């Protein structure tokens, strides 16, 4: 078991290195004069020269790459081109240093630190909701296959999988906020300051993500459940006279839900990196919003950081899912 985990973690590290390299090549090898693009208000030629020097535009690619990665693990000094009392200010960027956002004159880690709690609040809340409703709906329709409830659930989930989240979010906003005024326009409040306000602001994003995601989960868990219900051991369980409830929930659901949980882990990893559309439409300043903002400002250090962090989430969740799977299903280890 330990060997499997170690192997899996090493493979994940290799993947992360590859992602690091690819991201860096794509964003830094492309000439886009980031210094000029990211220069703040009081931008002088000297500032541009300084920032360019700090960015290492004049140095070879490998040196820039090494600098960037040294910052992540050891921290480094960053020159954001700031001037205080006529003297250039050089900031120290602590571990994990992801660079300096010239546009907003702060360290990238600060930007991330603000955005990450917003995204996790949206995603984790929605994830619990969509898992419960999706699997519940899927199991219900599998058990009532062909009946009205099943057909209705399939119809709803088809609408859900085809519904673009931005359109659904728009509908939610115009129904609950602009037409009826049942809910205020979402405004994120930290859970530490006011849990009630926190939940109130997150209701609509949760509903939007849940509707769109639960549909896919309902379809998937329905087909998994149907497949499991046709297995021999389920027939045996029925034949020995176990109550339907036990057969369905203890025997069938347990086997059917494993691949659903895998998908859930992967989705969670993908979403924690930022749900750009949902965040933007509901005015939540999370990771997705931060990267959209950075993209429209051509704020390369922030873009790099958000893409990198999002991939790290995906890779970590991949490892967790694989290892969990090996615990549940011992055959995995052998292959």
């Amino acid at each position: 078991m330990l060997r499997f985990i170690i192997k899996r973690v090493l493979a994940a590290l290799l993947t992360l290195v590859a992602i690091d390299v690819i991201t860096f090549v794509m964003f830094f090898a492309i000439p886009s004069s980031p210094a000029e693009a990211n220069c703040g208000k009081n931008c002088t030629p000297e500032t541009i020269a300084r920032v360019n020097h700090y960015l290492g535009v004049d140095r070879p690619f490998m040196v820039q790459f090494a600098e960037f990665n040294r910052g992540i693990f050891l921290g480094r000094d960053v020159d954001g081109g700031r001037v205080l009392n006529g003297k250039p200010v050089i900031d120290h960027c602590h571990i994990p240093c992801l660079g300096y956002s010239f546009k907003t004159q702060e360290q990238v880690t600060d930007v991330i630190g603000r955005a990450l709690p917003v995204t996790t609040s949206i995603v984790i809340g929605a994830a619990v909701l969509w898992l419960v409703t999706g699997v519940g709906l899927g199991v219900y329709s599998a058990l009532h296959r062909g009946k009205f409830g099943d057909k209705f659930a399939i119809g709803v989930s088809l609408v859900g999988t085809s519904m673009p989240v931005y359109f659904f979010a728009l509908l939610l906003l115009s129904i609950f906020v602009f037409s009826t005024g049942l809910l205020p326009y979402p405004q994120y409040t930290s859970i530490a300051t006011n849990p009630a306000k926190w939940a109130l602001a997150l209701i609509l994003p949760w509903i939007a993500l849940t509707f769109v995601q639960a549909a896919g989960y309902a379809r998937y868990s329905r087909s998994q459940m149907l497949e499991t219900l046709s297995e021999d051991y389920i027939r045996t369980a029925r034949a020995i006279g176990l109550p339907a409830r036990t057969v369905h929930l203890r025997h069938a659901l347990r086997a059917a839900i494993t691949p659903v949980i895998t998908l859930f882990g992967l989705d969670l990893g993908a979403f924690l990196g930022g749900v750009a559309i949902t965040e933007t439409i509901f005015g939540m300043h999370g990771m997705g919003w931060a990267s959209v903002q950075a993209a429209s400002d051509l704020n390369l250090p922030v873009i790099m950081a958000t893409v990198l962090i999002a991939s790290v989430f995906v890779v970590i969740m991949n490892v967790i899912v694989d290892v969990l799977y090996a615990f549940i299903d011992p055959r995995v280890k052998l292959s």
Partner: protein
Amino acid sequence: MGEPMQRDGNQADATAAAGVATAASGQAATAGRTDDSVTVGSVLTETKAPAKIVAGRSPGQIAWLRLKRDKAGMVSLYVLVVLVVLSLLAPLISKFYGDGPSDGHSELLDLQGIPLGYIGGVSGDHWLGVMPQRGQDLMMQLIFGMRTSLGIALVASIISLTIGVVIGITAGYARGWLDKFLTWLIDVWLSFPFFLFALAIVPVLIVNLQDEVGRVALWKKLFVIMSVFFLFGWTYPARIVRGQVISMREREYVEAAKAAGAGLGHILFKQLLPNLWAPILVAFSLAVPTTISAEAALAIFGVGIKPSDDVADLGQLVNFGVGYMSNAHLAPLTVYLPGTLVFVLVLCFNLFGDALRDALDPRSLR
């Protein structure tokens, strides 16, 4: 990053698509064993007819017969055909309708830029009204916008499938280190937050394509947008094709071809590829709606096609509508119709894709 609309339970699709090829592995493979009950079934129904009709029915014909029986699938196919024809004939329609997508009608707006008249300026000349501020005819914008979105989605899907199929066949047939490397590459690629990445890279690339006056030719922009889609779209078809090839390469007919001295190209493209059409078609029907939705999402963020490009685009229309969300009653059609059209397109493609998968896979449960 996998925003909801891009993910449609990929694993579910993978399992289903895995069954597809077994069904369609017709041709040489089915020679010995009549493995699909459909063939048997349709033969039985035809017993009353003269014997010669029983003789020939290709797997494609069988699939078409099954597809025709699927009501939801056929309805969505008709809707899609109508929408595609509308977008193909867009210039012609505009000529007969007497208005183009970019003709402004400021005389139909009040001083605040809100359309005069009922439901956002619906009239005999402008069937769906005009857009606030811009004063353009909404129906023309929708039809031309659909043309752009469908065009991008179709071209991008075809290219990404081609890349995916080539890589999938190579990985599956080569095995060994090449397969290991390609599989790892796919895993790395899938760990990339596609949507964030697209949002980030498109503006950077477009800035670099500017000419001296800071303008970017439209075709270059369209190419950048499409290239992001096929840069990331190939992984899913590549995975499926690889799995199929691995299961097919040991089949008798491949060995027979090998024994007869067939070259690598012949085995890959003449023996294996024909048996892969079913999963490829299904992957295509799933890739198109995903791309439509994602392309619209990019436009919503002002990445890609912008209002200044003077090209109608569905996503950009949705984006425009979002701006009037808080005053939806002033121009309801502008706010709700673009999103509805995206939804209908995606829904029809999904329904049709499901029907196609069922038609190609005789074992599918419903």
